[in-house]
């Protein structure tokens, strides 16, 4: 009897176990975050992805990293805080870039542009793959327009890599990902630049003669719609920049294809009516926000380098030698932009810049042209700033200056070059007009002045690009950044770096 009872029990237990074993479904979906399959499944997803890619590029270009470090490396702005890699990057004598993964702002100043540009590129590549795969069906206009936008991101993102780093990966929609380093090695910056230029050329070709336009929110330009024509003109200007700014020194600058720059600039954003700035309207810091301007136009964080102030008023020193404030000497400024774009804010007692960190960091002037981006009403309210201003990435004036420089460097029409310079030199600066009589050297000097004064705090890295190609950086300033240590470690490559001036450890500056 007991055996029967036990047997029954065992059978019951066995049945329970078997039943339970058969009934378990251990596949549980993650409903909190989408996978690629979910995120890129509809035409609207792909539109959003392409739009995200250009916005990611904008972040890569005009966020605080690396724009603030590059601006102090160029002695365009000055800041003593360790934040955003500023203190070390502007130390005198110069220090090598600390290429390591120990984190903090110095690590971010190279990692952020590297990762953000490749993130943008990855998004653009995914979008193009989906478009080429026919996600928009018969809607060829949508397919063409979003593909052109995505190709623009490809060109801009790879272009940024070529401008900032000594080498990079060339990745596009034809690259099977994930891919190993052994299959896809790093290549030097001129090769990356050429690949980027090919993408921008593709945008120019894809937009020529087309009449579609993309929704404003995709890229909220400040004055014009995002038509095929305007997209093509932006691509053309960005191509001119890429060719002009890729050179790392005077020799490379002289050897650059200035004829190409000329052609691109002639078709760029300042060329035809209406000329327009490649500028975005900030949306309160939600998606479209320009960290470079927000900090670069906020005196307690950053000031204008005395190198620039000295250019505008030679009576001022090009660098402080003590920590005492300097008198304004407003009369010494002849450029009308001093009144509109700059503010004298003597450092006084409650200074944010510690003297112990080096008097060379000091400046009594702040750039206030884009103050609205920094909150609009002075320093105190910065943190409650609305961040709804117009934030130029490339001014029409920059295209003019590239155009003018290309004319000068290709032996072109110097009068036209002077006219292009005067578009801002005279119109905004009320300075003596440049003329063909000034000659190539004179006009180039005027161009450099405009680049320093007119283009200040527009596109991230701009001043550094311009200074390095005329050998205008302080000795030991890196002329490009190394591939971030994190990427090198992942790819199991040796870590290297650039920059540094004696008595500090010295590495090549390029």
């Amino acid at each position, binding site marked *: 009897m*007991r055996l029967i*009872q*036990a047997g029954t*029990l*065992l059978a*019951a*237990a066995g049945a*329970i*176990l078997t*039943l*339970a*074993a058969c*009934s*378990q479904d*251990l*596949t*549980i979906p*993650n*409903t*909190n*975050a*989408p*996978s690629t399959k979910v*995120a890129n499944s509809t035409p609207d997803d792909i539109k*959003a*992805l392409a739009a*995200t890619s250009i*916005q*990611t590029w904008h972040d890569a270009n005009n966020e605080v990293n690396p724009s603030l470090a590059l601006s102090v490396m160029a002695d365009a702005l000055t800041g003593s805080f*360790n934040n955003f890699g500023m203190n070390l990057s502007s130390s005198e004598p110069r220090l090598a870039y600390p290429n*390591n*993964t*120990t*984190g*903090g702002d110095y690590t971010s100043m190279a990692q952020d542009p590297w990762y953000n540009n*490749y*993130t943008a590129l*990855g*998004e653009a*590549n*995914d979008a193009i793959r989906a478009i080429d795969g026919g996600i928009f069906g018969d809607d060829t206009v949508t397919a063409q327009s979003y593909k052109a936008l995505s190709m623009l991101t490809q060109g801009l993102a790879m272009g940024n890599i070529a401008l900032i780093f000594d080498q*990079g*990966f060339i*990745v596009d929609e034809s*690259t099977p*990902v*994930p*891919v*190993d*380093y052994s299959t896809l090695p790093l290549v030097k910056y001129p090769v990356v630049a050429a690949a980027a230029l090919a993408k921008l050329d593709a945008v120019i070709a894809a937009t020529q003669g087309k009449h579609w336009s993309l929704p404003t929110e995709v890229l909220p330009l400040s004055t014009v719609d995002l038509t095929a024509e305007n997209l093509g003109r932006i691509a053309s200007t960005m191509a001119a920049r890429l060719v002009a700014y890729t050179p790392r020194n005077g020799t490379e600058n002289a050897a650059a294809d200035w004829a190409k720059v000329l052609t691109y600039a002639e078709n760029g954003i300042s060329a035809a009516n209406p000329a327009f700035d490649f500028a975005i309207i900030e949306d309160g810091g939600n*998606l479209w926000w320009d960290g470079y301007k927000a900090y670069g136009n906020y005196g307690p964080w950053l000031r204008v380098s005395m190198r620039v102030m000295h250019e505008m008023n030679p009576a001022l020193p090009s660098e402080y030698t003590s920590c005492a404030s300097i008198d304004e000497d407003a009369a010494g400024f002849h450029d009308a932009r001093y009144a509109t774009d700059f503010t004298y804010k003597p450092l006084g007692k*409650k200074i944010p810049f510690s003297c*112990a960190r080096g008097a060379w960091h000091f400046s009594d002037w702040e750039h206030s042209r884009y103050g609205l981006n920094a909150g609009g009403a002075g320093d*105190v309210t910065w943190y409650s700033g609305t961040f709804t201003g117009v934030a130029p990435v490339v001014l029409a004036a920059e295209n003019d200056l590239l155009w003018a420089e290309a004319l000068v460097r290709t032996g072109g029409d110097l009068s036209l070059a002077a006219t292009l310079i005067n578009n801002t030199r005279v119109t905004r600066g009320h300075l003596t007009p440049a003329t063909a009589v000034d000659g190539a050297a004179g006009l180039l000097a005027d161009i450099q002045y405009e680049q320093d004064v007119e283009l200040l705090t527009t596109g991230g890295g701009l001043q550094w690009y311009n200074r390095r190609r005329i050998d205008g950086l302080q000795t030991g300033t890196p002329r490009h950044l190394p591939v971030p240590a*994190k*990427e090198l*470690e*992942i*790819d199991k490559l040796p870590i290297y770096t650039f920059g540094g001036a004696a008595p500090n*450890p010295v590495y090549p500056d390029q």
Partner: protein
Amino acid sequence: MRNPRAGRLVALAASFLAFALTAPSLAQAQDAVIKGTVTGPQGEPVEGAQISIQTMLIGSASNAKGQYSFSVSASDVKGQTVNVVARRLGFAAVTKQLALSAGEHTVDFAMKQDVRRLDEIVVTGVAGATEMKNTTISISKVNEDQIKEVPAQDIGTLLTGKVAGVEVLSETGLPGASATVQIRGSTVLQIGNSSPTYIIDGVVSKNGISTIDPSDIVSMEVLKGAASATTYGSQGANGVIAVTTRRGQNLEDGKVQFTVRSEFGKTDIEHYPPLNHSTVYVVGTDGKIDYGNVDPDNFMDNPFPTPQQDPDHYWRNQLKTWLQSNSVTNNYITLGYRKGNTNFMGSFSRLADPGIMPILSGFKRQNFRFNLDQGITDKLDVSASMMYGSTSSDQGQVDGADDFFGLLQAPPDLDLAHPNGPADTVLYDNFLPPDIANNSRGNPLYDLLHTNNNNQTERIFGAFTARYRPTTWLALDATYGTDRYNNLDNTYQFSGYLNSDGVSQPGSLTYGTDRDRANNAAINGTFSYGLQALKATTKVSYLYDDEHEDVVNTNGNQFKLRHIQALNAIDPTTFTANSAIFNTRSVQYLVNQGLNYNDRYLLQGTYVHDASSLFGTAARNNDFYQVSGAWRVTQDFHIPGFQELKLRAANGTAGLRPAFADQYETYGVANGQFSKNTLGNVDLQPAIQHETEFGIDASFLNRFDLDVVHSQRRTNNAFLQVPLSVALSGGFQSQWRNAATITGKTWEMALTTRVIENPGFSYSFSLTGEQTRQHIDRLDAPPFQQNAGGQGQGIFYYKQGEDLGIIYGTKWITDFRQLLDNPANAGMTLADAQSLYTKNVEGYVVLKADKGTANEQPIAYVDPSGNNKVVIGNVNPDFTFGWANTIKVRSFTVYALVSGTQGGQIYDFTKQWMFQDRRAGAVDQSGRKPEDKIAYKYYENVLYNVLNPNSYFVEDGSFVKLRELSVNYQFSDALLHQIGLGNFVRSLKLAVIGRNLKTWTKYSGFDPEAGSGGDANFRIDGFRYPAFRTISGQIEIGF
């Protein structure tokens, strides 16, 4: 029922129960009554001994006079011989044989004390209930008599110093915070994932232990590593702590037992870090500070004014001024009853601990528990364990970098009640005068008063078990457990809240909820059989668990309406919300085989098959195994002086489960945009720890019990979020992989002894010690920084081939020869170095030319490879120890628990932060000889250095702490009668209890018991709420 599968299991378990109920036998003849007296070594009555016939699941407990009685129904009385066993904590079990016949039997027991508790039964991690002397694995049992003297606030604290190999770290003194418990080191390279698995009354606790009242606990069984915890499969690698709560089974038959315990105490801080008493500003002849002018000598050595010289700006110790002595109350009531085979125990407790911060009311916890056991027949019984707990706290802004930190950094020369002078109408004004408050971060008192933090949790925990023993060789049981947890976090700042600039803010409101529902069901069968001297036990189990958690967080920061504390009063454009759902499901099959040959040769084998939705789809099924054996040498050989010598060895595996999201390919969603996040991993397995351990358990000289264990562990496939090349991955940033191997070696020692045992006086102690070494053997990823504590500074840098717990940072040169390693100093000789440099009073090498000037600074070491981030410390102690002492003098009991560590370093971020604001005592130059003084920038700029880690702040973390001390007086029966209480008061105890009474250490911060992120590997002093001292009185009355 929300979950159909769990529901089905419960239904099956219920049917199983109903089936069992159909087979009761009928009473026909006269019962057998077994009664007797239980006495101790001195012939004194032993109360609370459990006398039972285990094979019949029947028994009783002895009363205060040592008497017991129970009956066996006539249907089961067949003249058979049965074992009647008497058990009592602290005594060796006594077994007597009895031929069971109808009528009365007197069976008396004389019990002997057993310090080592060899006869105690353990049930966790073994095939069937096993006496400690017959275990083959590392299992430690902590009993009520070890934890009853000093009621703890959390379960972890109960284990402090009591179990070798278990490290308990109270990294914050924040009332209500659970201590960090880590067993034999780490199994992971992430922070805080080394906590053991807690089992409460047989059910896995999914929602921590902070809501459980430790007063309800009567015993804990601790399984220390993979070789012991294999039965818990992929949840066992960090060890298992199985908690048993108080039940009514040992109560005297037929009497209601009612106990009230009340504790009232006062809090204060035992040790304050040294503070700076000097200013760097010029002090005039009138004694007043000229705040605009830094003293040209740059030394921070000028005395602050006295209150007479400047009533507004004299020096105050803001910590001593504002940290308060508060009252802690802890009340606990139990009500128990047993009648025959029915018993229950109910308890209610209430803890109110305001901590030491001003203004806040602190932490409160209330718990209800009801445990019920019901014998249905002599073969079937059911049990229920139910708990409802709730906690509340208003301390959300206190710990870490918030208000405690604010108080620590507050300027000493201001009255924080009226920082801008008596005329300021704002009490505790958040705006501090900028000229005085260097790097002002506002007034912490203002925030304490005006930021309303409200954290509420509720916990419902239930375990329901049916046990059926149809034969002497078969036991079946089914358990259903449920663990439900609700958490609400709410923070409110009113519209008009002043920021530290004194500017009115638009207010903010945050609501966060977290709901977790975990259910599990288990069916176990235990088969006991034997052949002559060989006894075998086989356990087979099936376990199913699922968990559903949803979290919602909402936040808005612009009120449109004032004084309305509702989300709908907030400007919708400032509103953010996010939510997430986490579902998991797991099944486990287990076979556990125990073999016992004549209580001499013991063998155990375990096989576990685990499948979980948390594993990648291609790695869903995983197996774990364990083999262990022991030889009780003294059963075979007589060794003079040794009463027991057991050699044992175990080898086994146990695992860790990945987190919910780890296996999935994910995109981040923010502002309506998708961005690639982690690359999925279908091959993600549990991390698997392999452990081999050897142990010697010995009892010798009739007095000493010693366990020595050596354990070697290798955690293969430890989880790591491996960074990816965004370019080469197509945009994904990282992937969770089984990418690391961590090894660990532990030596453990536990010595227990009753040194003196006389009728009127006894002294016993237990001493535990351990040493653990941990190493990263394999890292299939680039070396990476691990941020913990402070403000996330990455002071730990994990590299293959290094120990776990190495601190990296800038090393200041203390030896001239170190200068020569720097490649930039190529060509420099030692003589050059000595001519250029000198040492300052702190032992750091500085430039001779700069010494004593504003430019004096230590020199950063650069190694021959040019690295300037080098090893500056190691958190691993040489050993840790715990020493629990009990002295009994007649009715007095004195209990003292001392614990501590030798070696192991701490990074003191608290001090580093205090350098920025010139608060730390170390920057004060007033006591130094003129030639030794160092300029303030040395501290404020170079050493503070924006909190970049450097060797200056690495300190020896060795300490000895008198953690608990209690003196209690237990009223004797005679005394109770003498004072007229004897007729209605069963017991009366008065006690004085001290906690965290005294720490001996060279560490300069608040408390060397520093940690971060719930992980003992991160000994970082990061301005945590300091552990405080409590001294209280307690009364316990039993009715």
